[in-house]
């Protein structure tokens, strides 16, 4: 950790643990206080009282570990609101459908002035709190992202954690068809054992809980995967 004085709330968390000398120098010169961590646990333990101001996560070394770290800090109660990713041009494709996990990104090798400008811009936009929508609403379904509660046509819908996460992902992208593999990697993360059948099992459980009349809210697209709501092109 560097010792530069400043607002105690201004601490940025870095992942993974050993930041490149370029990154450390850029942050120091720009006046950001930072702490590099190697795990979610470490990030939780060393977090300042007011929470992390933001996070800079590099995907250069271990991409999956980076995403897992982000999933954890974005989905906890006091989610880290401003996240900047560092990644190579070859990794750009992996940003798709992960918009909820980061706020801005910068390609490596980065230009120090560009990185500094992006960080400042990101923090100024963030202002006082997380910019994310706290509610997802679609066809009578309401998901409150703050309280983890779901309801359907006004009645509470009791879901397990993974059912909730799957429904949230689908409802945030209505009309779009997802393969089982995409759902598995975006909702569970690849580390999950059980394969694409896990997705089928959870879809069936969600449909059962939505009830017979509304089970078609989640549609099976033959030999492709699943879609929430109507096709965006109509039927």
């Amino acid at each position, binding site marked *: 950790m560097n010792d530069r004085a400043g607002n105690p709330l201004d601490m940025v968390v870095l992942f993974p643990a050993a930041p490149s000398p370029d990154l450390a120098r850029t942050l120091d010169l720009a006046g950001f206080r930072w702490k590099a961590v190697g795990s979610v646990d470490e990030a939780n333990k060393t977090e300042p009282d007011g929470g992390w101001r933001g996070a800079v996560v590099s995907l250069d070394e271990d991409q999956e570990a980076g995403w897992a770290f982000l999933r954890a800090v974005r989905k906890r109660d006091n989610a880290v609101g401003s996240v900047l990713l560092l990644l190579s041009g070859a990794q750009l494709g992996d940003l798709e459908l992960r918009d909820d996990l980061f706020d801005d990104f910068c390609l490596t090798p980065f230009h120090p002035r560009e990185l500094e400008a992006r960080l400042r811009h990101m923090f100024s936009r963030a202002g006082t709190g997380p910019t994310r929508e706290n509610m997802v609403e679609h066809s009578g379904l309401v998901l409150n992202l703050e309280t983890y509660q779901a309801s359907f046509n006004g009645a509470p819908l*009791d879901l397990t*954690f993974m059912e909730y996460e799957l429904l949230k992902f689908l409802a945030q992208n209505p009309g779009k068809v997802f393969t089982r593999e995409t759902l598995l990697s975006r909702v569970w993360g690849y580390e999950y054992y059980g394969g694409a059948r896990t997705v089928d099992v959870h879809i069936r459980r969600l449909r059962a809980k939505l009830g017979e009349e509304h089970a078609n809210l989640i549609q099976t697209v033959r030999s492709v995967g699943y879609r929430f709501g109507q096709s965006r092109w109509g039927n």
Partner: protein
Amino acid sequence: MLNQQREYVLRTVEERGVRLVRMWFTDVLGNLKSFAISPAELEGALEDGMTFDGSSIDGFSRVQESDVLAIPDPNTFEILPWVDPKSAEARIFCDIHDLEGQPFDGDPRQVLRRNLRAAQREGFEFLVAPDIEYFYFAPPVAGQRPVPLDEGSFFDLTTTDVASSLRKETIRTLETMGIPVEYSFHEDAPSQQEIDLRHTDALTMADSIMTFRMIVKEIAAMHKVHATFMPKPLEGVQGSGMHLHLSLFGNEDNAFYDAADPYNLSPTAKSFMAGLLHHAAEITAVTNQTVNSFKRLVPGFEAPVHMTWARNNRSGLIRVPVPKKGSASATRIEYRSPDPACNPYLAFSVILAAGLRGVREGYELAPEADANLFEMDDASLAKLGVQQLPQSLNDALRTMEESALVHEALGEHIFDWFLRNKHREWRLYKTQVTPFELDTYLRSI
């Protein structure tokens, strides 16, 4: 992910105003056990578990090592839909550990976990879908025969069918708790029902069967009806079975499927079947654990009697259903001897162990049983090498006692306790003088 799941459970308890959390686990005989904790205790329970005295649970601890630790599995947290939401209650399944934090040998859920891990190390996930049969009766009166609710026959549709409205309410409740139902219908026998569940991994399914039995009984009781999973409650009509549809999946593909085979069965499927057939007698005491179970396994009632397999004959021990349009993922085998009175965790454990032994050692599958086989007498069958399933609980226990496979699958603790307990049950039964004997001998001898 575990932390997020715990947090999710705690938030749900808070948001839904849950007043009681029921900690569920299963004793060695397959009875659902439970103790309730308050929401305030839940966070600690999720982190460190709850200690309780295991000596009060059938098959758990010996007295000198009586305390065990129940650690709830946050993935199984569900609100109980039949409880008034104003004083909401939830259930959560627990894994039992010893006080050092090691999986407890007497916990059937831990036994199944251990067997599933062994399959996973060989690259397999074990999927199960049960067809569960049961009866609705008027509330039982001691010493009297059960009274069926209706005299409806198979697929009978009448508006006065009480049983069918009970069944519908049961299915709604199951689905609300995340247990999808595939089919349901009125079975052959009076007041007999069948509900078929959609396949899941074996651990989830064992939990679902425990939940299923409790919901069926609970909903029936609310309407002053008695639901029973007793394997053969009525003489002269079909008993209640729990046929299990089984498949193994490799990484993404059904390891039982082979497009090139005339039956679409892979070599893995065939050696799994051979393993099951070879060890069927040894595992029968676990899949059919009551004295009454063996009254169901008799000829003439669509229950299996011989250790054979066939594509469409329903008297064989293993049936190979023909999947719709030869679908790869639907290729499976149906193991037909288990009944719904078994402990699903232990039954799945021994079935998986028997099948995997066949796969690991490349057992040869015997030819499909000829339809005529089922009309032959036992002596001719024996000449052809076709063996019968054990004829009584006593036979099944004697065969199990000699089985290294079952010993390994269940672990020493449960293996020994189960045999001791069930031998006692047999001895008690043997001393009974039955109505059959009185009717047959009292006057004539």
